[in-house]
């Protein structure tokens, strides 16, 4: 009975309605424009008067200033994701959890790197964002461990543990977790792609979105590798599952010029926002991080479109999770940007609205 109610249309309608209400509470474009014209104290006050109050109040004992804002925002994101997971019934929860597990990768690697560098536990904890499937208690337990080996052992129930276990020895030997990190992200995408065909409503359109996300991540990687002068051993850095095959991506990464890469991308995206971005990117009008921002905007727009087309599906939940993430990123960007003395116009260029 329970499983029927958790997989039937009612659960999707229920979840979609709750997510739509939450989404409506997110800051609007006008709010960001208003924030861009404020000073740092006003921004702090604005944040304290919104959904973030509880976390800011809680953390005010340990942090102050811009660090309080940033950590407060991150903790709010983590708490909000956990609240959303509690609301979601059955397969929707499983699906959302799978997508949120990329935060686990960030947290696990931060702990491993911090421990192997001899960073104090408190300092590592400040950097963690417990927005994934590994909860705060588990993260604390991992932080209490001294050796990276014990940390890996303690993660035996984590969905990506097999990859972690497989790659760990090589990472320890080479002294760098970069390869392991890349493998974990690739495994993450494989896992989420698999979840989209698990019978979840909206799985197919979300799969299309995910393929776009994989494509854009691969395009960013190709451009970064080109700009970083890396031409060899790029195969391992490409995520499978998108529209581009790994061979094509490797060929693109070996391009002689940035224009060649852009032209290669345009073969798959001959029109639309991606093609337009490749056009201006090829002209050298964008710094790479600006292009990344524009590509993120393309992803969010796609997500918005599919959530409108499939309102009572997992897509409405996923779009909220994404939008919430970028609200936090935008607020942090405004606060950090103001603190660093960047102009409002400059900061606006880094916002995803």
């Amino acid at each position: 009975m329970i499983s029927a109610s958790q997989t039937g249309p009612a659960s999707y309608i229920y979840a979609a309605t709750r997510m739509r209400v939450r989404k409506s509470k997110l800051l609007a474009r006008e709010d960001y424009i208003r924030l861009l014209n404020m000073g740092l104290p006003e921004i702090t006050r604005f944040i304290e008067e919104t959904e973030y109050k509880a976390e800011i109040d809680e953390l005010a004992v340990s942090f102050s200033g811009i660090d309080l804002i940033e950590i407060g925002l991150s903790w709010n994101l983590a708490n909000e994701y956990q609240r959303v997971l509690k609301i979601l019934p059955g397969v929707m929860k499983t699906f959302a959890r799978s997508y949120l597990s990329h935060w686990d990768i960030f947290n696990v690697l931060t702990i491993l790197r911090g421990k192997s560098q001899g960073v104090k536990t408190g300092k590592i904890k400040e950097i963690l964002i417990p927005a994934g499937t590994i909860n705060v208690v588990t993260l604390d337990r991992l932080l209490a461990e001294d050796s990276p080996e014990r940390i890996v052992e303690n993660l035996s129930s984590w969905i990506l543990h097999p990859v972690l276990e497989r790659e760990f020895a090589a990472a320890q030997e080479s002294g760098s977790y970069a390869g392991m990190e890349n493998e974990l992200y690739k495994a993450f995408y494989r896992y989420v792609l698999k979840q989209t065909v698990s019978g979840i409503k909206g799985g197919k359109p979300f799969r299309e979105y995910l393929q776009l996300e994989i494509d854009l991540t691969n395009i960013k990687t190709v451009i970064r590798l080109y700009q970083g002068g890396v031409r060899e051993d790029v195969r391992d850095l490409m995520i499978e599952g998108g529209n581009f095959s790994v061979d094509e991506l490797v060929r693109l990464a070996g391009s002689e010029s940035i224009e060649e890469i852009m032209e290669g991308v345009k073969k798959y995206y001959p029109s639309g926002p991606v093609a337009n971005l490749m056009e201006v990117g090829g002209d050298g009008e964008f710094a790479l991080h600006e292009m990344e921002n524009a590509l993120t905007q393309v992803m969010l727009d796609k997500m918005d479109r599919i959530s409108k087309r499939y309102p009572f599906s997992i897509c409405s939940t996923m779009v909220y999770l994404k939008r919430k993430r970028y609200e936090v990123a935008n607020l942090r960007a405004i606060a950090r940007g103001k603190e660093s003395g960047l102009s409002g116009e400059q900061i606006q260029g880094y916002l995803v609205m």
Partner: protein
Amino acid sequence: MALKDVKPTRSELINLKKKIKLSERGYNILKMKRDGLILEFFKVLEEAKGSRDAIGEKYARAQGIIAIANTVEGSIGVKAAAMSVREKPELTLKKKNIMGVVVPEIEATKVKKDLAERGYGVLGTSAVIDETASAFEELVDEIIRAAEIETTMKRLLNEIESTKRRVNALEFKVIPELKEASAFIKMRLDEMERDELVRLKKIKAKSKA
């Protein structure tokens, strides 16, 4: 050298003349060394000026880009990426000789790294982290270059100063004193010669009478 300590003998005069010659030769060599060092110093000074400007420029760029990184990724993202770096730059100190002055030659490795060597995963970070890492690597590289140039400049300056002191000591103290002593001995020897002449004349006159 006090004149009272000078023995007014012919051998002493010969010694003094040798010393004067040696001092004058040393003086000329040291003067040439000083001028050479000054020339070298001005060359290094130009490099140092360029290097200081480059440091200022690269520091401003690094600060600008880390401000953007903090804005885009947050300090959390930047700190997490920074934790990935395991390999620290290695410096090898060698010695170089500029006109007898030993100056350091610093060889740095593992300062500038490519994307694959930095230790963070490409898929979990963004391009702004690459740009930040690259900007700071360039800054560290320039600081190491500046350290070499500025140490060279400092050592050259010290050497110029001590050479200048030696040149001045030779020009205004040692050589004049030696010359004075030599003139004194010459005068004393002449006087003694005249004494001897007068004495001989007197003896001759006495013996005639």
